[in-house]
């Protein structure tokens, strides 16, 4: 086993034992269980029913809680180790900073992504067992979207973790980023739009730069390829690119953001004092 995989493997084992991981897994697993108990698969809203309806609800809730879960559990991974002197000891062994940093990212990515994916797989199996038809295209789209969203916020979290000295500050920044992307940016853009200070296209482009927003739109694009539920905004998006391209962008773009932030975090980690 090389050092990169060793770090990833040990981080994964350590995370799986942590209490936050139990809560994290229970939240996503429990959500799916709750949907079945509540009979979501039997309901029909806006034309969506069965497992499609369940997956749509799952993704709508996931978009709110997954980023904050990833941010608060990951943002302390390096800054927390720095805080309590674990980094000082673990890095006194001949491991390169590249192996340590990227090993941590790989380990943490598996930790945060697998429970979310596993909950969806359970839903598919349980739905199939109950005789529901399986919406494979939606399942694969969501697998890709969740992968991309997890990457984006993991990259952002590691970026914060690489330069913040105290884990409390890291948590504060993480929370601010989450609430900013979730709500503040929308509120600000809506007010700009209402005041008509900028043209609508610019505002929509800014909104679409937000990985949570693009995830949100892409999540409904398979059910509603014309994006009619979004009203006139759909015109701007689908006029700019086809629905297929939009779906691809919605997966590639957050993944690229995550990669860019993670890489920037690595450069800071490499150039700054380690402890």
């Amino acid at each position, binding site marked *: *086993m090389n*050092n990169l995989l*060793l770090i990833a493997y*040990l981080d994964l*084992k*350590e995370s799986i*034992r*942590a209490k936050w991981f139990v809560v994290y897994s229970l939240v996503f697993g429990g959500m799916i269980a709750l949907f079945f108990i509540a009979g979501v698969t039997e309901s029909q809203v806006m034309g969506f029913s069965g497992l499609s309806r369940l997956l749509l609800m799952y993704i709508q809730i996931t978009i709110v809680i997954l980023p904050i879960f990833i941010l608060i559990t990951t943002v302390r991974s390096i800054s927390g180790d720095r805080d*309590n*002197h*674990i980094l*000082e*000891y*673990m*890095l*006194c*062994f*001949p*491991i*390169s*900073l590249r192996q340590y940093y990227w090993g941590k990212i790989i380990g943490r990515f598996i930790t945060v992504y697998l429970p979310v994916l596993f909950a969806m797989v359970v839903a598919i199996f349980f739905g199939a067992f109950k005789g529901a038809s399986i919406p494979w295209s939606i399942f694969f789209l969501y697998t890709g979207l969740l992968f991309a969203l997890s990457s984006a916020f993991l990259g952002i979290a590691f970026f914060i973790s690489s330069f913040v000295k105290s884990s409390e500050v890291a948590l504060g920044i993480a929370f601010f980023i989450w609430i900013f992307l979730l709500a503040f940016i929308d509120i600000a853009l809506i007010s700009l739009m209402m005041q008509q200070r900028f043209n609508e296209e610019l505002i929509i482009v800014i909104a679409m730069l937000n990985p949570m927003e693009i995830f949100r739109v892409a999540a409904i694009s398979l059910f509603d390829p014309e994006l009619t539920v979004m009203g006139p905004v759909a015109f701007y998006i689908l006029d700019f690119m086809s629905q297929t391209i939009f779906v691809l962008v919605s997966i590639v773009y957050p993944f690229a953001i995550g990669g860019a932030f993670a890489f920037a975090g690595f450069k800071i980690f490499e*150039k*700054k*004092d*380690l*402890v």
Partner: protein
Amino acid sequence: MIKISNLTKKFGSHISLDNLSCEFHKNESIALMGANGAGKTTLIRSILGYYHPDIGEILVNGTNPIQDRVKVLQDISFVPQLPPPIKLSLHELMQYVSISAHVEKELIVHYANEMKLDIKANMHKSFFKLSGGMKQKMLIAISLAKNSTIIIYDEPTANLDPKARDDFYRLLQQNEEEKVLLFVTHRLEEVKDLVNRQIYMDLGRVVWDEKA
């Protein structure tokens, strides 16, 4: 083995190491002393490649620890003053050390036994759940099993009872040949039989350097 040239390290406006120059050679056992804030820990962390110097450089066997940390750290064993709350089990910690630094696990178990630490009974227990003394014994066992040519101890006996201290000094005496031993200590009387050089630091400078 270790050459420190005109090393200055600042944290904001505070100068932690002030144009410090010093060399440590093979077969030297050094007691590094000084009041709190004298710069001892900063010096050690700079040798380990944790800090980027503002001015000057450190060479360990001719290699800069920041530019080639892997090569430098192959030759260094380090035990911090307070054992960190590592959440890995002893088994996992040994796996980490054994793969990253090519240390034989059996050798860690051997030195742990010499320190009267029963690793096998605690193999799957988290490191941070051990008592302070047990943690320190484990880190000492790892440092000795690594068989480095440079051993750095930052107040290593702080959590050890008198018997464990005796075991520790006995093991060190058996392993000090052809090495550089660097002790950060406030208790010279404890290590004076072991050291052949005493360095006293104040305000980031070496103010007293005496070889036996």
